Every structure is written in C-alpha cells, then in structure tokens.
C-alpha cells in the first residue's frame, strides 16, 4: 500500500473534521474525481466514521423537548465541539421526535387501530452495545418492530418508541411489558419516559394495580422487587391511579407508592425538585474534612490537612503537591438514577504564582466507561502566594444513563515549571430538574 493512500486518508479525515483548509478542498475533490480507489477509501472512511460515531455515542436521549429544541434554535448550545455535545443529542433526538410527530400528524389512524397479538406496537429505537435481552421474540436489532409482550433487559440500556410517539429508556435489569401502542407495564426496574403531546395519555402500569397516566411530559419510574413504585416528574404532569386517593404530580414532585398508598413530596419554597428521602440528595458532598474520602486517588494527588492552606475547614485535596509529575487522578463511582439530571459543583484554587493554568479535566462516564456524559476542563490561571488562596467555583451538568456513573478528575495543568499546586474542595453533586437554571455558585436550589 502506498504512502499516497496514507496521505490521502489524512487529508480526507481532516476534511471530515472541518480541519482541512478551504484551499485544499478543491485538491481533494480533484483526487477523488481522478481515482476510483480513493473514492472507495473515502466512502469507507465516511461510513466507518459515522458508524463509530453512532456506536460509541448511543445517546439514548429523550427526543428533543421543547426546551432543548428552543435552546438549539437560539444558539444556546454552547458546549464545545470537542465534547459529546448537546447539539448531537438534539440532532439525534430530533430525528426520532420529528419522525414521530409527522407519523402521528399524518396518520391519525395510528392511535385508533386495533391490534392483534402480532401487530407491532413499538420499535426498538436504540440500545447500548452491551444490551442483553431475554425472552424477546425475533430480532432485537436497531429498528426492530416489537409486538405486544414482555421485553426483559438483563443489562445495558435500550430505548423503545411506542407507536403513539412515547419513548421510554430502559436500564437493565428491567422488565417492561408492551400492552398496546400507548400503554406498558413496568414489572421491575427503572424507566425514563418522554411523552410528546401527541401521546397524551401514555400509561405505565405497575404492580398492585398502580397506573401512571402521563399528561405530556417527562418522568422517571422505578418498580422495586417488592412491587413498590417510585415516581419522579421532571416536566409536565402525571396522574397516578389505582390507589385511594389517586392524585396528580407536577414537575419537581415525586411519590413513593407502597401497599396501596402514596407518599407525595412537593418542592418547598426555594426548591425546584423534591425527592423521596431514600434517594441520596446530594448524591455527593465531600468537603474532605473526614477521612477517608470516597475518591480513589492515583498519581500525584492526596487528601491534605494543612489548615492554613484550606479556604474552608482544615482539609482539601491537593494535586501536584511537591512539584513532581502532573498526573493526579481522583475517581469515584456513584449510584445514580438513569435519566436524572445532576449538577456537579466544586471549588478550585491555584497556589503560588507560577506561569500556566491549573487545569482539572472533569469526565463523567457511564459505568462501562464507553460513553462520556460530560467532558470539561476547569481552569484557573490566576494564582496566589498568600494562604489560603481564593477559590473559583465551577458548575456543570450531566444526565445519568445507568444505575452507576463514574466521576473522574484528572490534573492536566500546564505546569511545566512545576511552579504551582492545584487545590480542590467542596465537591457536590445534586439532582436537578433538566429545566432548572444552572446555578453558577453559592446556594443550590435543590
């Protein structure tokens, strides 16, 4: 194989990234015109790049909510191109949402059709690479039509789109029975439902006669092995029925339904989200005052107890202490609710005045580590040689896709002269409504 092929592929890869200078485009086009082998390689490159992008990302995202669509239209999507961006989630979600909208609009009979047992009532619209199904009739490939019956997901994640347009994300282990094109039965496990307006009335049954009727919204629902149901409404409203008394939950409210009665939690003044007490809130709050920390430390990072350097209490986490290698990693695995949005907040300080930025890469990953839910770099340029340093607060947001989520903090400081330290303190993760405003610092609303 010649070097010419390598050079061509380099140019073509840069072309697909938008990194090829404009003046080089025509030269690339000329090569493609002249050489069938290069056209074959180019089509391979495009195809493989697209399949890899789809395979790795597996967004399992909810179809675009009005909020997301509006944010994109207004250009609020400010996430850097380099990350798994909101725009990508929106684009893929829109593919399904728009199709379903049109499907519904142009096919009014789709709601009223009667179904035989073999009539498809839903479609498998996405699944993770590690998804394992049991008891499924027929193919479980992307786009497979699903007839009435049970779908058991042992592990991984899957997305099912009902013919009504309702979309549910399932996280294994989970068992969902599809009853008709706008109704399911969650026997056990967790689902996250997005119900566009046209699927108004989408119903999820649960053990002991519980029914959750959606009024055009987004909600999380869990059925535990004993048959208890937990419900969290993220947008819009739902009715819960089949118990006395029945009731209505609006965005930010939650309920646990056990033994025929519901315990309801409504947001208090100043709150946007009220969760049952057994759900960890905050999910994580570590000021490092008490050892051991829940984090696993690797490389040049440690919990430090030098009160004069801490801006709060007496302890903090120090990266690159002693001016050795910049290689510290702090990692922690957290028990999350799939579909729940979380706000991550922490404080960083740069001690001493050395040139360069004190930088911390923030990665939030699915349990397998295959999918990045958040990738950001927190950077502090201005240092201080007086103690304690003035901290800077960083705030990010991610949406969990599984029952466990990995948080990884990596020191990537441009600290060539080893002339400063990076301090971390007061790290906190709280569940929030996806529509809640990002709180830049200070008191959290939830």
């Amino acid at each position, binding site marked *: 194989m010649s070097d010419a092929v390598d050079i061509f592929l380099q140019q073509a890869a840069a072309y697909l990234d938008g990194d090829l200078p404009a003046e080089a*485009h025509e030269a690339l086009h000329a090569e493609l015109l002249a050489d069938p082998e290069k056209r074959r390689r180019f089509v391979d490159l495009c195809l493989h790049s697209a*399949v890899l992008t789809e395979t790795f990302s597996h967004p399992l995202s909810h179809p675009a909510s009005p909020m997301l669509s509006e944010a994109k239209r207004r250009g609020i999507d400010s996430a850097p191109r380099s990350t798994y961006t909101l725009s990508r989630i929106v684009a893929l979600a829109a593919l399904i949402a728009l199709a379903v909208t049109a499907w519904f609009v142009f096919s009014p009979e789709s709601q009223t059709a009667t179904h035989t047992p073999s009539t498809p009532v839903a479609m498998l619209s996405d699944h993770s690479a590690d998804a394992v199904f049991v008891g499924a009739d027929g193919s479980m490939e992307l786009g497979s039509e699903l007839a009435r019956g049970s779908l058991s997901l042992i592990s991984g994640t899957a997305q099912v789109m009902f013919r009504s347009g309702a979309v549910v994300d399932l996280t294994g282990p989970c068992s969902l029975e599809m009853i008709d094109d706008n109704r399911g039965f969650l026997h056990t496990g967790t689902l996250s439902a997005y119900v566009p307006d046209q699927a108004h009335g989408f119903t999820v049954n649960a053990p002991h006669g519980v029914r959750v009727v959606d009024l055009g919204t987004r909600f999380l629902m869990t059925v535990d092995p004993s048959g208890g149901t937990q419900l969290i409404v993220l947008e819009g409203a739902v009715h819960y029925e089949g118990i006395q008394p029945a009731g209505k939950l609006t965005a930010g409210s939650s309920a646990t339904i056990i033994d025929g009665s519901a315990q309801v939690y409504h947001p208090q003044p100043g709150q946007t989200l009220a969760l049952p007490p057994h759900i960890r809130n905050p999910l994580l709050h570590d000021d490092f005052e008490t050892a051991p920390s829940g984090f696993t430390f690797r490389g040049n990072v440690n919990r430090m107890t030098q009160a004069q350097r801490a801006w709060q209490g007496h302890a903090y986490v120090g990266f690159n202490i002693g001016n050795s290698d910049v290689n510290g990693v702090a990692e922690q695995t957290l028990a999350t609710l799939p579909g729940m949005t979380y706000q991550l907040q922490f404080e960083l300080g740069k001690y001493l005045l050395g040139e360069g930025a004190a930088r911390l890469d923030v990665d939030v990953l699915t349990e397998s580590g295959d999918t990045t839910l958040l990738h950001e770099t927190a950077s502090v340029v201005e240092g201080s040689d007086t103690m304690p340093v003035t901290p800077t607060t960083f705030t990010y947001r991610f949406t969990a896709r599984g029952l466990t989520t990995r948080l990884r903090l990596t020191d990537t400081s441009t600290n060539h002269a080893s002339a400063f330290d990076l301090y971390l303190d007061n790290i906190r993760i709280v569940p929030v409504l996806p529509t809640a405003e990002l709180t830049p610092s200070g008191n959290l609303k939830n």
Partner: protein
Amino acid sequence: MAIEQDTIVRVLVKDRARLLAYIWAIVSDVHVAEDVLSEVTVLAVKKREQIADEAHLAGWLRIAARTEALKALRTDRSRPTPMSDQLIDLLDAEWATRDAQSSNDLADALQICMQRLSPRARQLVKLRYAEGLSGAVLAEKLNQRIKSIYVAISRVHRALGDCIRAHVARESR
C-alpha cells in the same frame, strides 16, 4: 400506494448511520450533517405519498439528502466550494455498492476489527468518536502536532477498512 409511516421511521432509525455518512461526505461537518439528516427525516414523512415502498425509499432518501446537503452549504457562504455534481455522481456509484450490507453487520464487523487494533489505536478511536474530539482538539489535548494526529487516524482507518473488507469477504463465502 404510499409507503407506511412506520416503515419510514424504522428505516431511518436502522440506517441513520449510512445516511449520516452520505451527508457528512458532502458537507464535511458532522454537526451540519446531523441537522441535514433531521431535515431529510421530516421531508420523508411529509412526502410519503410520493414514495412507493422501502426500495423506493432508499433512493429517495439519498436524493433528498444530496439536495438538502447542498442547500445547507449554499446558505453558509463561509463554507468552501462544494463538491461538483460530477464528483457526487461518481461517489453515488460507490455508495450504491454498499447498499447490500446492513448497518448492523457493518457495526458488528467494526467492533470485531476494533479488537484487533493496538490499545493506543483503540484509545485514539475512543477519543475521536466517543468523545467527538476533532483532530485539532486531539492534537491540543495530547500535546502533539495536528499532522501526527491525522497520520495516526488515517492508519487506524486504513487498518479498519482492510480488516472489514476481509471480514465481509469471509462472511459472504
């Protein structure tokens, strides 16, 4: 007789990677490609009366994708000169040779071939496609020259392409 809407949705979900690739080749920006793909999705459902069946849909989607991709380029004057019709026609002939292979089979072959890459190459693929880092951003992140990154990416793709061709040839025997 018009195609069923659910057939359109099923085909679009199943083959979205292939259609995304086709559009991406023309617009040279994956984000623009995803926007165009959304437009094509809406069009397909709106115009379903013009589409007879699943076989017709495949060709219809490609024509719509080509039209919408070129329209997207025309509306952004900062974009470089688009491909000529002659070049797109030639590439269409190449795309047509891939129609028989299902997206799922290709994804399976890619997964198998990924396992044959070196750990470093797999890491590069992961950064490039899982995290969506472009070559320029990768170069900055890894503190390498951009040319070195594209050399590595091109080698990975060449290895993957050769492996997939061999895999498909074995499977078709």
